[in-house]
């Protein structure tokens, strides 16, 4: 498969000039960089105007969290709502990561990710897949951890992970790539994608009280 056949149009939102420069250098061979912004407001405006395939979004911007950008796009509707987001951060704070995923980001990777891995993640998001880093898998497992007795499950469909999904997340957290994971579980990579997308959907749609409560508790710890 040639890279040119599916060069996604990528937009970069990050307030660090040095980091943007680094990402530009790493990505420019494989994607079309159609613009960049360093804060929430300009990002919203430019993304609406240029409608990229994928937006690489920093979790922390001077004007607020990156989830504000995603929410503005969803609110705008139309083509803007179809723009896909990949969150990118050095932050460890799980509540920030969960917030951006719940807003609608298709994945989360840390900024220490290598160039080829980042390109791979961007391409996968462009194709509609979800990208889970080990760290995100850990956060999600934590958020969906066994419900205590006093916590009612509102919607079993959305509020709980299936054993298979749990297994998939565990392997990702252990450092397995999707390919290694598929081999390990004797399933196709496409099935892995399906599981991961299902987890993402649950994460975004679950009204589960615990997800928010978990985030608050984490903040307090």
């Amino acid at each position, binding site marked *: 498969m040639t890279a040119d056949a599916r060069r996604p149009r990528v937009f970069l939102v990050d307030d660090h000039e040095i980091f943007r420069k680094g990402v530009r250098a790493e990505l420019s061979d494989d994607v079309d960089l159609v613009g960049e912004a360093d804060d929430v407001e300009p990002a919203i405006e430019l993304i609406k105007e240029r409608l990229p395939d994928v937006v690489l979004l920093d979790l922390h911007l001077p004007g607020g969290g990156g989830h504000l950008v995603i929410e503005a796009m969803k609110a705008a509707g139309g083509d803007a709502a179809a723009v896909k987001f990949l969150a990118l951060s050095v932050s460890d704070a799980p509540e920030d990561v969960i917030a951006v995923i719940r807003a609608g980001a298709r994945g989360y990777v840390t900024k220490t990710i290598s160039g080829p891995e980042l390109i791979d993640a961007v391409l996968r998001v462009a194709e509609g897949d979800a990208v889970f880093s*080990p*760290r995100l898998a*850990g956060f999600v*497992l*934590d958020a969906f951890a066994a419900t205590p007795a006093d916590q009612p499950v509102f919607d079993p469909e959305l509020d709980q992970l299936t054993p298979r999904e749990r297994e998939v997340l*565990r392997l990702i*957290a*252990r*450092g397995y790539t999707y390919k290694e994971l598929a081999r390990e579980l004797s399933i196709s990579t496409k099935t892995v994608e399906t599981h991961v997308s299902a987890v993402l959907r649950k994460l975004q749609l679950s009204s589960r009280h615990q997800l928010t409560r978990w985030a608050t508790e984490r903040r307090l710890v």
Partner: protein
Amino acid sequence: MAGVAGGLARRLGWDPTVVRVVLVMVSLSGYGICVYVLAWLLIPAEGENEPVIARSLADRRGIALALAFLPALVIALLIGSVLGLTWISSLALPLLVSAGGFVLIWRNADPGEKAFLHRAAAPVTSLAQRPDGSGRSSRFLLRTLAALLLLVGGLVALFESHARRSAFRPLAGLLLIIAAIVIVFGPWWLRVARDLVVERQARARAEERAEIAARVHDSVLQTLALIQRRADQPQQVIQLARAQERELRSWLFDGDRPGAPGTQDSTFAAGIHRIQEDVEALHGVAVEVVVVGDCELDDGLRSVLAAGREAAVNAAKWSGAPELSLFGEVEQRTVSLFVRDRGRGFDPETVTEDRKGIAESIRGRMARSGGTAAIRSSPGAGTEVALTMSREPGRRPRSAVAT
């Protein structure tokens, strides 16, 4: 105060201290202040050609204001004579003349003197310089009136008491006077107190900023400098960057002091992060850590950590992989720890003796504490060590593996 004493002394050829003492003595009679103000008006300041009065002559409003004290003087003299209080008449004349002169000085002094006066007169000016909102100015008027009433009442009560000799009257008079003073100056005091609080907060913020700057300087900037110097040794650069990242993270998110000596880890998650730190620092490989859940450590879990540390150190030393993954999970019943690398791996069937020893020491340690260890490896595909242990010590079967 305004250099009058010094100026007079120079002109008269006396010692300035003598002039000051004389001035203070004269002031006690009331006329001294008058003399002082007049001298301030009439004698040019050092380094200036014209005295304040020369400028004042052009200031018609100032003169009008100063003259406005004349009726006040007349009223005061009248009151004094009616009540037979001679001290009022004897004080009124010099005080009101001084006040008139002071108004002229106030309006016409040079900027340096003005600034000095403003500072000295802050409590009084704060009363006069109200924001021009009509509500506020009427409130100010009300306050002044109330204060005046209280003051007069208090003074009357105080002086009347001589005749009646009751202890209550002077006390009440004093209280009224104090109340008057509080009403007039209260807002100013409040403002001063508020300014003090604001200033203290600003200082606290500045100190905090300074502390952060010092921290960043001690840690991040030093590391960046080191990284620049070792740009040709990528392994060391990565090691430095990771160590710095860890330190900064623990400071930002966990509130740990950078460089603080490590205390005994008390939880499973903390233990895993300690393994990450030590392996990264000692062996220069990146360790990716994911931990789900957490719990207190007990002897069995310490064995899990010790075995995990051994597995991580092995991977760092032998696998050749630049990165390791550590995944720890605390569930309701079990605790597991996975150590994985994508290095060269080995064939468990044909391991060399020393390798086997290491593998056995991990397995043996886990078995002795009632847990399990599974080691999977194949050449070219890396190695994974999986360690599990029950959370309930009663459910940990002790195996009979000899040490």
